[in-house]
């Protein structure tokens, strides 16, 4: 009888214990997977915005249309610029008030300056866009230039925090999985005390006795991680179904689920942790 068959027999007899353990491991992994999902999407957003190639040039209120057109032509001729759209002060007001915000309706005309929406080729380096923005902002008619660089930097900072938080969470999950699996295996060992005792008495080596328990630990960790991913995928599907469109419009990209490599790594990590926890928990308990 192979270790796998012996593990299956043991697991079948103690299935309630294993289900509880798998559920606890899954809860721990859901936290980690959710944090990773956020990190992956924030990273995607940062990438998207870093390559957004957009700038808004806001004019002072006294700028004439001729001056605006002159600047528009100059910008259009700049390297990497693919499109330039003029948004007058009235259009800007209509755009905002069209959303039905009555508080904003009371704002003065100066709150809605005319602007040029500049689209830059996505392959253009961020430095070139920054140079263009700095040149344009030096013009006396220009109030300010928004290149969304601040947002990218803020997102990068959020991402760094997210990665740090995920690492901390990974350690917490590691501890939780090891603790849950080790306790379950110790309990399973107690329940199968006679079996283990007899195995030792008939000449089984420690590794022969341990192997099915290690397989059970690995299965608990792996299945727990897999279950966590399935749960998260279901939740993700629900959120995307209901909010995906709005989120896409709001942040400029559709949310994505964890890549395959992450998912496979997480299941492998769960199995490895489970196996190590089981092996460690049995080290001192096999004395007969």
């Amino acid at each position, binding site marked *: *009888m192979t270790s796998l068959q012996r593990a299956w027999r043991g697991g079948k007899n103690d299935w309630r214990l294993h289900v509880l353990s798998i559920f606890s491991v899954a809860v721990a992994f859901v936290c980690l997977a959710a944090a990773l999902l956020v990190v992956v999407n924030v990273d995607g957003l940062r990438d998207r915005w870093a390559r957004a190639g957009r700038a808004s040039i806001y004019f002072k209120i006294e700028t004439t249309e001729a001056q605006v057109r002159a600047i528009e032509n100059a910008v259009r001729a700049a390297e990497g610029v693919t499109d330039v759209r003029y948004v007058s002060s009235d259009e800007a007001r209509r755009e905002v008030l069209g959303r039905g915000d009555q508080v904003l309706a009371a704002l003065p005309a100066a709150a809605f300056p005319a602007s040029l929406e500049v689209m830059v080729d996505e392959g253009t380096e961020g430095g070139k866009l920054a140079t263009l923005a700095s040149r344009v902002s030096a013009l006396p008619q220009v109030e300010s230039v928004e290149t969304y660089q601040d947002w990218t930097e803020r997102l990068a900072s959020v991402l760094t925090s997210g990665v740090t938080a995920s690492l901390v969470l990974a350690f917490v999950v590691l501890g939780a999985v090891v603790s849950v699996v080790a306790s379950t295996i110790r309990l399973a060992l107690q329940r199968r005390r006679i*079996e283990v005792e*007899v195995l030792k*008495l*008939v*000449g*089984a080596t420690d590794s022969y006795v341990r192997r099915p328990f290690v397989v059970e630990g690995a299965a608990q960790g792996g299945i727990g991680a897999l279950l966590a991913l399935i749960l998260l995928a279901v939740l993700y599907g629900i959120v995307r179904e209901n909010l995906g469109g709005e989120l896409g419009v709001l942040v400029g990209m559709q949310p994505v689920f964890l890549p395959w490599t992450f998912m496979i790594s997480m299941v492998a990590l769960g199995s490895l942790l489970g196996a190590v926890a089981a092996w460690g928990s049995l080290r001192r308990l096999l004395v007969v």
Partner: protein
Amino acid sequence: MDSGPSFSPMLRSGNRFDQEAAHRPILSFEQVHKAYRSDAPVLRGMNLSIQRGEFVFFTGPSGAGKSTLLRLLYAAETVDAGRILFMGREVGRLRPESIPFLRRNIGVVFQDFKLVMNWSVAENVAMPLEVLGLPERLIRTRIGEALERVGLGGRGSDVVATLSGGEQQRVAVARAIVGEPALVLADEPTGNLDPQLAVDILGLFEDIHSTGVTVLFATHDRSLLDVRPRRVIVLQDGKAIDAPNGLDGDIEDELRVA
């Protein structure tokens, strides 16, 4: 002409088969001391020699050290002083990784059976063979043979929990002999059985012994010692009193004086 299987011992290269070894005692206890508490030693300088193929009763009151003695044999305990030689090897000096290989030569039967109750009879009996890594087919054949020998032929698929106490002990005996060990230890195997069943189980051990297996049978039930005259070792005050022909009047007197 004997057409049965020939005995071809596996020898390490460089080691020659030692004819003398076959005539040495299978077990020797030399000045064995064992104490769980320093003020109450269980065994005090015990000397004993048991030949291959012997059937020996160990008896004595509860706490006399019968179980301890057996536990020392299969290395579940270690001696405090002295030495125990099993097939010429000193048990106390075996490295931990060698102990499983010692145990593969010893079958043990306990008073509480030590069976996995929710497994089938066959699964329980198969354990020593699975540990050896024998092929599935051979395991099935040998389980069948062992169950036949203990009178449980065709009961392999029964769940142990559904068997009577006597049947459960037979399963434990089948498990002890299925690996064809050189030595079978029985630690109060009839302690949980009624007198008739106890005699039946004793008969089973005598059958096993008749095939050449050395049997050490620990019991505090004096009535079993009278069933057939056998060598009896009485453990008393940490010493072994040897009665090669059973407990006759002289030995009984000696025990009373002691």
